[in-house]
């Protein structure tokens, strides 16, 4: 599958530009406290290296921050935003907590599942394009149901809006492929 091939292609180390960015983050903390940069560096690493944190990526981050690998594993597995397995091109994280549930998040989750032809949350569509995840309260309670894709919040979801979103991201992916 394309996704696997691409995932393999994106591996450490960071490009010189990204490395400068990472060093800037490390400098925000006092000397010797470089471990403080870990969460932000993991976010950057995940974005750079195929959307997930492979053991290789985590070991690389450990090296950059001059800490033991286990310290990175401990942190990466604690925080739920990090993907520890490869995902589809786009990850839909639907908020499932109370206030969103009151306005129909369960129905939206079911709808996305059927659209993607998957049977459970956490699975990826057969074309490798979308992974469905659920998230706990994303702080958009007044604008639910909602989902997060990358940095973007999509709020007031309806089945029609979910259809539009999927078209939007598919088109986005096609144009990024054509550019390369």
């Amino acid at each position, binding site marked *: 599958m394309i996704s696997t091939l691409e995932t393999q292609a994106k591996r450490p180390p960071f490009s010189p530009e990204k490395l400068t960015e990472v060093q800037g983050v490390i400098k925000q903390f006092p000397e010797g406290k470089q471990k403080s940069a870990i969460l932000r560096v993991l976010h950057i690493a995940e974005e750079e290296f195929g959307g997930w944190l492979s053991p290789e990526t985590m070991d690389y981050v450990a090296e950059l921050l001059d800490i*033991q690998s286990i310290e990175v594993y401990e942190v990466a597995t604690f925080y739920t935003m990090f993907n520890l397995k490869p995902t589809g091109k786009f990850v839909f994280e639907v908020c499932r907590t109370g206030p969103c549930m009151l306005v129909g998040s369960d129905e939206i989750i079911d709808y996305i599942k059927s659209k993607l032809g998957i049977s459970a949350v956490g699975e990826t569509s057969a074309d490798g394009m979308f992974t469905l995840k659920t998230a706990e309260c994303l702080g958009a309670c007044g604008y639910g149901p909602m989902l997060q894709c990358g940095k973007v919040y999509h709020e007031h979801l309806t089945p029609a809006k979910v259809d539009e979103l999927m078209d939007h991201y598919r088109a986005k992916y096609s144009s990024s492929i054509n550019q390369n």
Partner: protein
Amino acid sequence: MIKVTIDDIEIEVAEGTTIMNAARMIGGDIVPPAMCYYSSLPGTGGKCRTCLVEIAAGSTKDPRPMPKLMVSCSTTVQDGMIVKNRTSEKVIENRAAVVEFLLINHPLDCPVCDQAGECDLQDLGFSHGKEGSRYEEEKRTFEPIDIGENIKLHMNRCILCYRCVHVANELTDQRVHGALHRGDHTEISTYIEKAVDNEFSGNMIDVCPVGALTDKSSRFKSRIWFLNPMNASCECKKCSGKAVVWMFGKQVYRVSVRQDKYGEVEVEDGKPNWICNECRFDKKDVSNWNIEGPRHIDRHSVISQGHYEKPNPLKNATKNIE
């Protein structure tokens, strides 16, 4: 020095002493049980909540009772503090609840567990637990894994005391195992298969209060109560060489650190007598050791009942009958 009263017994202790340590100075049954706290390992304590006690009076200055139960391992005494441990119904009840919490996901596989007979959780369940369980749900399970060639990890039995993480922090600057994930999915692991191979890694077996970490070189060889614990020493360049060898006849089945009555490693001149992996895993010949004599074990455990260091009164009784 400040005065503190625990279960109606008064004692003077140095400022900064924890309730737990003040109770240990008094000794006996008033000492709260500890599953995660371990004196020689800085940073341990506060997690298991079995040592919760009631503070009936905060201090002479402020004699108000504290509204919540406090963890005795991490709460320091104040002058005039009145602590209730086994004399508090609230403590007994809440400690029983903690025992229940610790057991709901525990496999209760004592019949096949090497720790049985010297297990802190078994002892705690016996002394502070209630009969039966109200837990009807499925237990969380993990597959047993090897962490390094010498140690088996049964995560199902783990109570997440974090002692093994702290002992690694203490004895090496290259810890390779740790706590992963979170909530009730938290597990002790190396994440990807990695050998825990620093020279003192075996000590995590001894600090483990349950059968989560066991010594592969002695697994399933014998029930602990059939072994004779002997104080033994050897010339070792890496460690103190002071250990307990667990013998069956003339064979050494297992080697461990010398533990005090709270299950903690003995401290000599301020230094804990941790032992190295060579002493623990490789010196299994009685000729490796200078046997000093029987080890007295003073705990609420099955192994304490052997009294191997004394002549067995039952044996004599049987002789007389003959």
